[in-house]
């Protein structure tokens, strides 16, 4: 389990327990108010800071759940997938135009017109 997975796991846990845990809310508040670097001051500050980080991840998890996607919309993989699809559709359209052009040329030949 890497750091991201660990944070996500903790965020899930926090999401489940948050409403029943006023102590947790207080820790998040204290951690959010912490100046940068204070997390290393001592065990209590570390727990507060960690709680704030987990709370941030929790908010991201909520957005992800609300959008019904495993991955946030607009992510790199999401864009790459759409780009692939669109590139294919444009290429296929080019192919169909070539086919139509071939049919058009044949009709123009038959009618004696040279077309444009």
């Amino acid at each position: 389990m890497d750091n991201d997975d660990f944070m996500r796991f903790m965020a899930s846990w926090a999401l489940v327990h948050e409403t029943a845990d006023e102590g947790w809310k207080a820790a998040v508040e204290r951690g959010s108010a912490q100046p940068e670097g204070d997390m290393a001051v001592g065990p209590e500050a570390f727990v507060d800071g960690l709680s704030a980080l987990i709370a941030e991840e929790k908010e991201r998890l909520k957005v992800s759940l609300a959008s019904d996607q495993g991955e946030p919309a607009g992510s790199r993989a999401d864009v790459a997938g759409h780009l692939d699809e669109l590139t294919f559709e444009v290429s296929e359209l080019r192919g169909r135009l070539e086919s139509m052009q071939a049919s058009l040329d044949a009709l123009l030949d038959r009618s004696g017109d040279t077309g444009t």
Partner: protein
Amino acid sequence: MVLGLVHARFGLSAPARRRSAMARQARIACEELGPAFIKLGQLASVRPDLFSAEVVFELEKLQDSIPPVGAEHIRTCIRSEFGRDPEDLFDAFEDVPVASASIAQVHRARLKAEYRPVLGDTLAAGTLLAIKVVRPGVRASIDADVELARVWLRRMPRMGILARVDLEAFLGEFEATLRSETDLRNEARVAERFAFDVRDDELVMVPRVVWARTTRRVLTMEFVEGWRLTELTDAERDGVDARALAVHGADVFMRQVLVLGRYHADLHPANLFVTPDSRICYLDFGIVGTTLPAQRIAIAQVLAATVYGDADRAVKYSRELGLVIAHEQEAAVRDRVATLMKRTLRRPGQRADVRGFAIGFLSMLADFKIAVPVGYGLLIKALVTVEGVAQAIYPGIDITQTVRPFATRLIAQEMLRPARLYAKAPEMLRAAMRVLSE
């Protein structure tokens, strides 16, 4: 044929035997009546929602292969489509066709100048091509044949056969299918989409289309060197990794059905090639099946239940796919499915028989008068075909062993999807999440 009909009519044999006898007669009749009826039979062979299992699996033996028309007719058609002679369009156009079916025949030629296809690298000048050309007069003969089929099929209900089939609707579909097949641009588009879906798969190939040489009645594609599965000999199997290819072919099908939502529903050993560099090549994209996202997980559950021999689960998720089983039938249906699974899929020391299971399953549904939804029937038929195809590549393969990990993995992924976890979470947790999100 008359004896067969009499036998069937007066119930001299058990229902399944009677249906088998009728199916054989139907196949022979299609062969005797000619190409349009062979196509009609082939269409029926992918519709287990309309016809009995025995008919469906008997009619799949029909081979659409007829003598070719003369090269002068084909040349006239190409000239009419492009306004130019084949020699102006291609190099080395061959007058002798390499294949001939009721709608079109295929000739070989070479690409005159390099061409940039929709997918993949540029095709070099001189690339070997397959030129598929619609036979002259096909449209007119379709009209005549459909009318003949209409007269022929209208007699069937009077004989007590096909009582549950809406023949007019089926003939309408038949006519639309044939008309669609006479516009080869449709096939080109489906082939390109299929190629796009498998673009990352190095073991699968789909011939690329040369659109600048493709019109309504002419389809130009890469020519694939290899062996049709129907022609694969032991010596050729030895030259490729046949087992890996068979497993991979089944995997590709699973991915199409369960992930992509589009699958080749007209698979047949004659529509598939194995190339000398150990790849599977797909041809002829006449019938395409589709699955909706909501159906895919239910399909995965049915497949998993089938390969693990879990009758309860198979019945439960078949319902989600539209199978209407009355409450009072449920126990009996489940017992029949469990028995069938034991007899066909879970035979100690023997390979699973998916085809036997499918025939038995569809027969059971017919016995209980349970209607088969169109997509469900197409899928069962396609799965059986995949088994046939995989065994044509590697006769010893057990298709259930391939399906098992794929279906299990997909179900696990679905179970762990955040949206599903949310949906399945207890109401109290969802309430907490709603409060938090406000």
